[in-house]
């Protein structure tokens, strides 16, 4: 007898409806959440236990409709069509009920058993929207559970109801009918599909409707189904409505949603509280908006810089004392000394150099994401991004890149055009991730001061702009921006601290071992004199072109793995206790920072680029970054030779 199949519950909803927050509450896994459409672009999975039964819980990327228009939405469509789903929890943003119910109708059309999580009920109440849950249940003939996922309110009830509903075998939601002659066409196609036996797990009505409104997505999912045979039926609808089928169906679905919404929701007071709207007037204003944007980044920059450098300053003497304490081992047992030294240098690198900058950065980024401000930035910079061949929507991916380039590459899935995705993906590795931000801050704090950190960041922005402009010359015009501006929300301290904690744990799990093992490996290869061969490889660039000590060459190899390694490796390779003791001039440090910031994305980013875009784009991006890093660093070297030594 085979093992019993684990049942699957999927969270499906429009972007920003709170699916990922709900998923986080229900599972032990922490998926990325933010107040920006399309943050979750991958399928997240967790096993949860309900009444002793293990259930697979799936968080699907947010989708406005099952007529997908970008890759993230396609992931959801494909999953629902191809996988065996036992129940869908349709997460609905109660504050924008009418629009949300359009997707609800499509899920009903699929025929998968469903429960509605009427989320953000607190927000609906705050704008004076009174929703009659019982009436909604009656009209949809599905269970409706009010929730406020961010506070965990109603979540337990939701999962119990979902579990109970999943046990039923006779669940049947109400079907919403289109105009009679459209229904006639749906029936004809539905019968044909049923006879041919396509999509056995999905209600043939759903496939029939899609064959009318969007046949290409059905054709792409199952090429055996020739949707062209329904062309005459589609033409008949088009002739009757004087518009294309997708417009007609969409219009009718919209009309049904409006009508449902009118029956169940009542506006008891006028509009949203004035504060967020008033604030928006400033944040989206072409002048005040930019002032706020610059102020925001300036504050973020200086907080990270000063918090980081203060903590590093406190830890540096302690580290030097500990390093001095085991120097006697050198004469006793060299192997033991190298191991202890490598281990300790790695720990110092992780705790003393990287974390002081990493933690404030990710904490501030978490606050930033929760507020919904990213969408405002996207709106503001749309014009500027148009000039470099992209539209403002790409900005979300770039901002995410400050935390880590990997989710940023995935986030390009929210872009509708492949062209915009490719350009963004090639440019994102130039965005300094938290590792490179730590390198920039730690080295400038030790040698050059905050002004040089500002100059490095401005130079990186210039590099991205020039490369975008050049890439855009080879590719056609950017697509126009269509972007949801979610309501501004006060960030939850608990959620932001939680996200920071989990990202810190990720760092400790993934990056810290690299730092410690890498440090030990470097100690051995230095001792065995292997490093000099690696240094030879980089000699033409590192020494000849950039006038840096050749010993830094081998550290760049470790930078391929994780950019934070550079910090540990540099001091180790140069035989000094702390980075502040590096025998480099300030000019050389700046040249080194520029090269390290721009050259080659880390190995994981490289493989994500391969996975998402193929080898051509990944190698193109890596090659471009090495060339740009060399040219950029060389320009600084030439500049310093002209103006002389700055310190």
């Amino acid at each position, binding site marked *: 007898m085979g093992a019993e199949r684990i049942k699957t519950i999927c969270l499906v909803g429009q972007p*920003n409806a709170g699916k990922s927050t709900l998923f986080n509450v229900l599972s032990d896994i922490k998926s990325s959440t933010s107040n920006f459409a399309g943050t979750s672009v991958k399928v997240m999975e967790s096993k949860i236990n309900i009444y002793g039964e293990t259930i697979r819980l799936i968080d699907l990327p947010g989708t*406005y*409709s099952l*007529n997908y*228009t970008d890759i993230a939405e396609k992931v959801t469509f494909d999953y629902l069509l191809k996988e065996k789903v036992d129940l869908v929890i349709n997460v609905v943003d109660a*504050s*924008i*009920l*009418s*629009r949300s119910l*359009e997707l609800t109708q499509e899920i009903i059309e699929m025929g998968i058993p469903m429960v509605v999580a009427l989320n953000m009920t607190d927000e609906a109440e705050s*704008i004076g*929207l009174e929703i009659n849950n019982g009436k909604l249940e009656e009209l949809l003939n599905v269970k409706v559970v009010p929730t406020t996922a961010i506070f965990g309110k109603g979540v337990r009830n939701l999962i119990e109801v979902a579990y109970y509903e999943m046990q039923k075998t006779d669940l049947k939601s109400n079907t919403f009918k289109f105009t009679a002659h459209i229904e006639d066409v749906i029936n004809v196609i539905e019968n044909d599909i049923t006879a041919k036996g396509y999509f056995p797990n999905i209600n043939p009505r759903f496939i029939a409707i899609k064959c009318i409104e*969007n046949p290409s997505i059905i054709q792409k999912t199952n090429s055996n189904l020739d949707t062209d045979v329904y062309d005459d039926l589609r033409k008949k609808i088009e002739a009757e409505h004087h518009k*294309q089928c*997708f*417009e007609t169906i*969409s*219009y009718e679905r*919209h009309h049904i949603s*409006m009508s449902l*919404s009118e029956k169940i929701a009542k*506006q008891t007071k006028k509009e949203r509280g004035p504060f967020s709207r008033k604030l*928006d*007037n400033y944040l*989206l*204003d*072409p002048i005040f908006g930019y002032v706020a944007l610059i102020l925001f980044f300036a504050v973020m920059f200086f907080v990270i810089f000063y918090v980081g450098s203060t903590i590093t300053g406190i830890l540096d003497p302690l580290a030097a004392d500990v390093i001095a304490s085991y120097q006697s081992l050198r004469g006793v047992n060299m192997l033991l000394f190298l191991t202890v030294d490598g281990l300790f240098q790695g720990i110092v690198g992780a705790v003393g150099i990287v974390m002081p900058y990493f933690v404030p950065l990710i904490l501030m980024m978490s606050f930033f994401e929760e507020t919904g401000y990213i*969408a405002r930035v*996207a*709106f503001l910079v*749309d*014009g500027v991004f*148009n000039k470099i061949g992209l*539209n*403002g929507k790409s900005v979300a991916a770039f901002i995410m890149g400050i935390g880590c380039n990997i989710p940023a590459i995935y986030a390009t899935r929210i872009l*509708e055009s492949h062209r915009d995705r490719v350009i963004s993906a090639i440019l994102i590795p130039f965005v300094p991730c938290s590792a490179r931000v730590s390198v920039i801050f730690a080295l400038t704090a030790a040698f050059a001061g905050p002004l040089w950190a500002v100059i490095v960041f401005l130079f990186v922005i210039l590099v991205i702009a020039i490369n975008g402009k050049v890439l855009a010359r080879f590719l056609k015009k950017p*697509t*126009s*921006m*269509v*972007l*949801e*501006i*979610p*309501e501004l929300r006060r960030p939850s301290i608990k959620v932001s601290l939680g996200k920071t904690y989990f990202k810190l744990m990720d760092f400790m799990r993934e990056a810290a071992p690299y730092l410690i093992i890498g440090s030990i490996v470097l100690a051995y290869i230095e001792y065995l004199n292997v490093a000099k061969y690696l240094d030879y490889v980089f000699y033409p660039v590192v020494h000849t072109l950039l006038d840096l000590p050749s010993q830094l060459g081998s550290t760049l190899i470790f930078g391929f793995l994780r950019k934070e390694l550079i910090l540990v490796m540099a001091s180790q390779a140069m035989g000094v206790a702390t980075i502040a003791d590096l025998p480099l001039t300030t000019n050389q440090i700046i040249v080194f920072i520029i090269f390290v910031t721009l050259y080659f994305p880390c190995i994981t980013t490289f493989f994500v680029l391969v996975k998402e875009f193929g080898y051509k784009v990944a190698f193109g991006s890596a090659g471009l970054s090495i060339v740009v890093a060399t040219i950029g660093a060389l320009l600084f070297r030439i500049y310093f030779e002209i103006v002389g030594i700055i310190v």
Partner: protein
Amino acid sequence: METILSIKKNIEFKILKINSDDSIKQKLFNMGVHPNDKYIKTMGKGPVVIKNISHNSTQIALGSDLASLIAIEIV
């Protein structure tokens, strides 16, 4: 003919026709932007922001190229 781009901020309007390509039109429909609904332009001379006032909704930002392709009638 007036478009979303051509009108001033805080003007209420009804969408008559979306003259973009089908994929963008589909995206707009998916995001709840439909002909015949009433909107208000809340921001912008370059990219613009509109809000549906026929029912509760979030704001939608549109690039200026697209805003110039959406024919409207002031209400």
